[in-house]
C-alpha cells in the first residue's frame, strides 16, 4: 500500500481529468437523497452522502443487462465491458461487491458480471455522515472490506489516497499527488474509525451465533407470520440490497422482428411469482406461496444460507432495506433481535 496526498484545491482538476478520460460513476444528489450516477462534472460528486438509494452493484450488474444477442439463427455473446471508475464507495458497499465477486465466480463463472467487474476501478471513500438506519458497525465484524483498488479519505486540507492495486496506481497520473505524511496517514485512520463509533451497535450477537439461532427458528411459522403480516411483497428490500443478485431472464425482440437479445433483470425473492412453476393447462405450483415463507427466505439468505460460501453473513449493515420498506418491517436488526430474544 502506498499513501498519497491530494490538496483540497487540486481535487476538482483530478476529478475533471478522470471524467474527461473515462466513465466515472460516483455518489450524487437526487432531490433529498443520493444515487450513484455517471458524473458529468466534478461538482456533481457528493462525498458527504450518507447512503445511496440503490447500491453501486448496478455499475457491474446493471438493472437490465444483455447476456447474448441474436439475429435470425445466429447468436453471439454480449459481453462488452467498458472501463470505468467507481468512486466514493463506502466500506460496507465494498464488502458487498466482494461478496458478489465471490458468488458470480463460484461454480460456473458468470463472465457477464466478472468482465464488467474487472473493467472497474473501485475507489472507496470514508463515511462522512452515518445513515440513521445503518448498522454496519455491528454486522459481519470479522469480514474486512477488500477488492477495492484505492481508498480516499478526507483529512485536513485535502485527501489521503491509499492505492492498493496497479489499477489504483493508474489513477495517480490524473492528479497532482504528493506522498502522504505519516501524520496524514494516521489522521486518515482516525477519520475512518469515527463512523464505526457513531453507528449504533444494533446487533449484539456475533454472526455465527445469529446464523445458528435464525436457522433453528425456521419452523416457527407463527413468528414468521407475525413478522411478515404487513409485507406487501413489493420486493423493495431485495432491489435496494447490495448483496441481492437474483435475476429474471427474458428475451426481447428488436423492432425488425428478426434480431433481439436475451436479457437479465433484477428480480426479488419477496415477489409472489418468484418460485412459481407452470404445470400446464394453466395450473401452477408456488413453492413459496405465502409471504411469511418469502420473508423468511430473505432472512435466511442474509443470515445463514450463504455464510459458508462468504465466510460471514450476506448483509453489510447499510440499512437500505430498513429505509425502503414502506411498512418498516424489513430492518434486519429488528428481525434478528426478535429471533435472538425468543
Amino acid at each position, binding site marked *: 500500500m502506498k499513501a498519497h496526498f491530494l490538496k483540497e484545491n487540486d481535487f476538482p482538476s483530478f476529478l475533471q481529468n478522470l471524467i474527461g478520460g473515462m466513465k466515472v460513476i460516483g455518489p450524487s444528489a437526487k432531490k433529498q437523497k443520493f444515487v450513484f450516477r455517471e458524473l458529468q462534472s466534478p461538482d456533481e460528486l457528493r462525498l458527504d452522502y450518507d447512503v445511496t438509494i440503490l447500491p453501486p452493484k448496478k455499475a457491474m450488474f446493471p438493472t437490465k443487462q444483455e447476456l447474448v444477442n441474436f439475429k435470425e439463427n445466429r447468436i453471439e455473446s454480449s459481453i462488452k465491458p467498458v472501463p470505468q471508475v467507481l468512486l466514493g464507495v463506502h466500506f460496507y458497499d465494498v464488502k458487498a461487491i466482494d461478496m458478489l465477486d465471490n458468488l458470480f465466480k463460484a461454480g460456473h463463472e458468470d463472465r457477464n458480471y466478472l468482465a464488467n467487474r474487472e473493467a472497474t476501478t473501485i475507489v472507496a471513500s470514508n463515511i462522512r455522515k452515518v445513515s440513521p438506519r445503518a448498522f454496519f458497525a455491528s454486522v459481519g465484524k470479522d469480514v474486512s472490506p477488500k477488492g477495492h483498488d484505492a481508498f480516499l479519505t478526507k483529512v485536513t486540507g485535502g485527501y489521503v489516497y491509499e492505492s492498493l492495486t496497479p489499477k489504483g496506481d493508474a489513477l495517480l497520473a490524473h492528479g497532482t499527488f504528493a506522498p502522504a505524511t505519516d501524520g496524514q496517514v494516521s489522521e486518515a485512520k482516525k477519520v475512518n474509525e469515527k463512523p464505526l463509533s457513531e453507528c449504533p451497535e444494533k446487533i449484539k450477537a456475533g454472526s455465527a451465533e445469529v446464523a445458528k439461532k435464525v436457522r433453528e427458528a425456521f419452523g416457527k411459522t407463527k413468528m414468521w407470520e407475525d413478522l411478515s403480516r404487513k409485507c406487501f411483497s413489493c420486493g423493495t428490500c431485495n432491489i435496494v440490497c447490495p448483496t441481492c443478485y437474483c435475476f*429474471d431472464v427474458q428475451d426481447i425482440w428488436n423492432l425488425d422482428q428478426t434480431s433481439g437479445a436475451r436479457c437479465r433483470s433484477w428480480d426479488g425473492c419477496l415477489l409472489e411469482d418468484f418460485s412459481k412453476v407452470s404445470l400446464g393447462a394453466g395450473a401452477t405450483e408456488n413453492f413459496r406461496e405465502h409471504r411469511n415463507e418469502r420473508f423468511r427466505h430473505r432472512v435466511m439468505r442474509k443470515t445463514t444460507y450463504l455464510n459458508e460460501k462468504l465466510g460471514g453473513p450476506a448483509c453489510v449493515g447499510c440499512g437500505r432495506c430498513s429505509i425502503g420498506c414502506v411498512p418498516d418491517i424489513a430492518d434486519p436488526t429488528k428481525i434478528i433481535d426478535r429471533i435472538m430474544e425468543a
Partner: protein
Amino acid sequence: MTHHTAQDNVFLPREAEVLKAEQVTATEKHFTLKMKDGVPMTYGPGQILEVSMHGFGEIPIGFASSPTRKDTFDIVIRTVGRVSTAVNKVEKGGSIFLRGPLGNGFDLDKLRGHPILIVAGGIGLCPTRSLIQYILDRRSEFGTFTLFFGVKSPKEQLFHADLKTWRASKDVSFHETVDKGDESWKGNVGVITTLFPKVKITPDTRVVICGPPIMYKFVIRELEKIGIPQTNIYVDLERRMKCGIGKCGHCQINDKYVCMDGPVFAYDQIKNLEEAFR
C-alpha cells in the same frame, strides 16, 4: 490475468439439429437432436439442459435418453408457456438451442448392484427415461428392475414404442396405471400407489421418483411401509431454473439450488426442507 473469449459466456447456447420431431400426445413433442458443432453432448442420466429459441427464452428440460445411446439424444417438451410453445413448432431439419449439461443427475454408483424401482408420473417419465434406457443397456450391472408408470388418462401416455417393448421385456417388470380409464383401457385404474400391492418390492431396493409435486408424499409413504431407508430414495425435482448455473435464485429450496445440487436429490437430504414438497 486469464484471457477470456466470447465462448466463456455461460449464457451462450449451442445449436442442435432436429433429426426427428414427433408429436406424441396432444401437448408433448419428442425431439431427437444432434449438436451442429460436431462436439457431442456428454452427460449423465438425470442431468438437465436449458433449452431455448431466440426471442422466446429458455426453459430447463431433462435429458429423455441415455448417454449409452450414442451420437444423438432426446428431449420431450410439453406445450405450456411461451418458450415451450415456440420450441414445439420446430420440425425435423430445424434448430433448437441448448446450454448444458447442467446439474447433478442420478448417482449411478449408488444404484449399481441393487434392485431398482422407478416411479414415474406423467411426463416424469421423460427425465427418468434417461435412467431406464441406461439400466436396460447395461442390464447386468443392476439387480431386479421394476418400473411404475402412471398418467391421468390413457391418452396422456407417451413413448408408445417403449411401452410396448417394456410390456414384453423380461429385463423390466413394468406396471402401468391410469387415474381414469376409457373404453380402450384394459389395464389398472387408480393412482400410482395402487401398483404397490401388485409387485414384491424388497427393502434393499433403490428407488427413483419423478412426477407431479403431489405424487411424492404418497409414494414415499408406501416406501416407508416396505421399510426402504430414506437414503435409498432419490427424487428428481422440477423448478423454475432460469439460469441453470446456481445464480438467479429461482430454483432455490432453502439453501439448496436445484439446478446445481440437483435436480436429483437423495430424499434424506431434503426431506426436512419445507420448500421441497408441498
